[in-house]
């Protein structure tokens, strides 16, 4: 479980202090929730009735979900028994870059068909390069150069169809 510590300013959460054992506990909780939710959701599968005798569409997913919950609980027991093997930390120094990168990636997906492939790729690539620690001017050059590569390699050579309506307006 993530450890919390009190300070003068109140509770402070530091994801880097999450131990491997704590990670296993979180994983088990997530898997059990997934298993229960998946089992309930499988009850909503609408089955077509026909002449051929067949098994329910929920049969296979429910078998897997039952296995998932059983093995997750075994993992929990294993983690409690083997304390020494689950020491150590999970997340690294720059963990906070992951949520930022995720937002940039989904933003590119949102903008891709709205403003066109080239501006969306350029903008997201530039931001990701800066986030990764590349100097802004170098990032600008790489992002712009990559657009030329996209055009020549993907569009001209491979014939990949990308949304370019935005460019056609000009």
């Amino acid at each position, binding site marked *: 479980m993530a450890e919390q510590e009190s300070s003068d300013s109140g509770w402070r959460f530091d994801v880097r202090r999450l131990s491997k054992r704590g*990670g*296993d506990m*979180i*994983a088990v909780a997530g*898997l059990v929730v997934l298993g229960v939710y*998946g089992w309930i959701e*499988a009850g909503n*599968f*609408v*089955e*077509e009735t*026909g002449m051929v*005798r*067949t*098994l329910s*569409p929920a*049969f*296979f*997913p429910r078998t*897997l979900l039952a*296995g*998932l919950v059983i093995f*997750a609980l075994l993992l929990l027991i*294993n983690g409690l*028994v*083997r304390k020494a*093997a689950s020491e150590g930390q*999970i*997340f*690294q*120094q*720059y*963990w906070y*870059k*992951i949520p930022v*990168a*995720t937002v940039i*990636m*989904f933003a*590119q*997906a949102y903008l*891709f*068909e709205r403003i066109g*492939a080239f501006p969306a*790729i350029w903008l*997201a*690539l530039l931001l*990701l*390069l800066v986030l*990764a*620690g*590349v100097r802004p001017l170098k990032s600008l050059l790489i992002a712009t150069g*990559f657009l030329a590569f*996209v055009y020549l390699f*993907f569009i001209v050579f*491979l*014939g*990949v*169809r*990308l949304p370019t309506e935005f460019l056609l307006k000009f």
Partner: protein
Amino acid sequence: MFENWLLGVAHLGDWQVILAMVFGVALGIVVGAMPGLSGPTGLALMIPFTYGLSPIASVILLISIYVGAEYGGSITAITVNTPGTPSGAITAIDGYPLTQQGQTGRALSMSILSSTSGGIFSAIALILFSVPLAQFAIAFGPVQYFALGVFGLTIVASLVSGNWLKGIIAVLIGLLIQTVGTDPMTGAFRYTFGQPALWEGVSFISAMLGLFAISEVFRILEVGVRSRLEASHNFSSERMPFREFISYWKCLLRSGVLGTFIGVIPGAGAAVGSIVAYNEAKRFSRHPEKFGKGTLEGVCASETANNATVGGALVPLLTLGVPGSGSTAVLLGALLLHNIQPGPLMFEDQPDIVFGIFTALLLANVVMLVLGVYGVRFWLLVVRISPAILAPLIFSVAFIGAYSTGGNIADVAVMLVIGLLGYLLRKFGFPLVPVVIGLVLADMVEISLRRALIISDSGFWIFLTDPISATLIGLAAASLAYSIIQDVRGRRRTTA
């Protein structure tokens, strides 16, 4: 048989096929040499762009990447002590000390010559064993296929991770992802949440790109910028005379056999092949004390075995349709996308594809030899790209790849969600290879299970009364029991 060979060789008259082979080997070498990138990542990134190629050119491109990637890891292992692949770490044990002793050229010569020998040896083994195995497997029905699927999944889960519980859970997650979409037998929608984009299920390409490419991007970002690879030595360009190389024939033969055999076992892979061959080379050597201090015999054993696993791993993939590693799982997915169904029937229905693959595998090793001998300095320049630059570029290529397969932004969203899932799985210690193998085998396992139960009067007993099925399920249970025993022994050692 002879006509089939002619059909296979005929493909090589196509410039597209030759270009695909050369480009594939070159890309594989770069991917293998770059620390952090892996063969499956390179394969996953290239799949979307194979749609414009003929099926045989696509398959040859991907197999060539696989061949090149197994060799590429040794270049950075020998020159800068930074192996690009897990098996490269074994090569580095003796390869880097040789560089420190000013024998880089000889070590690199040994690496490329033994990789080529291992690759060609295993390709010949593949040709010899796959045809009879396919003829044996032609009688398989749903009962045997279900048992085969369970065997493949269990053995991969128990061998690949070192933590059998997490391996099994990873397999179940892979199987569950594939239940999203339309039920293959009744047509009912499962876990689609009213989204038409999910009716056809999770796109295989999006899943592969998410699991391998996007999770890798996250990992690079999280670790932070690392300085690019810098060489601390001036590399000698002295090459090893071929006569000297031949004097290592015992090591080559032994490591080739071990690598090929280990490659056939699902879940074992190139790293295990290299470790076993290295240990055996040391055991049989006249100078075991030189191992670890810089001996060409160590490089020979590791490199022969890791490339020999390629042909071995293709045996169950081509004959039974069961992948045993991350790379072969991605290959299986790619073959299915091109309407090529690996398995015994492929040997009857599409012999040109089968024998095209055999011919290409032999030739790809020759291409690798040429590119390896003459291109080392170029590969070293390429792999010096900083990971900080590489990660965003991988994301952009993966994004275009996921979008271009169906022109649908939902595929990109699926890739990102699965990428996040893959990153979290890696963080919490769950291996990704069993997830991928679960994904590609899910349809075979589910359809075979349901068909077998429909035709069975005895329910699940049918899997134990059929001799082939019972043997496979017995082997699956044995591999699981072996992992549990190892786990208990490890726990006792820790507490002792």
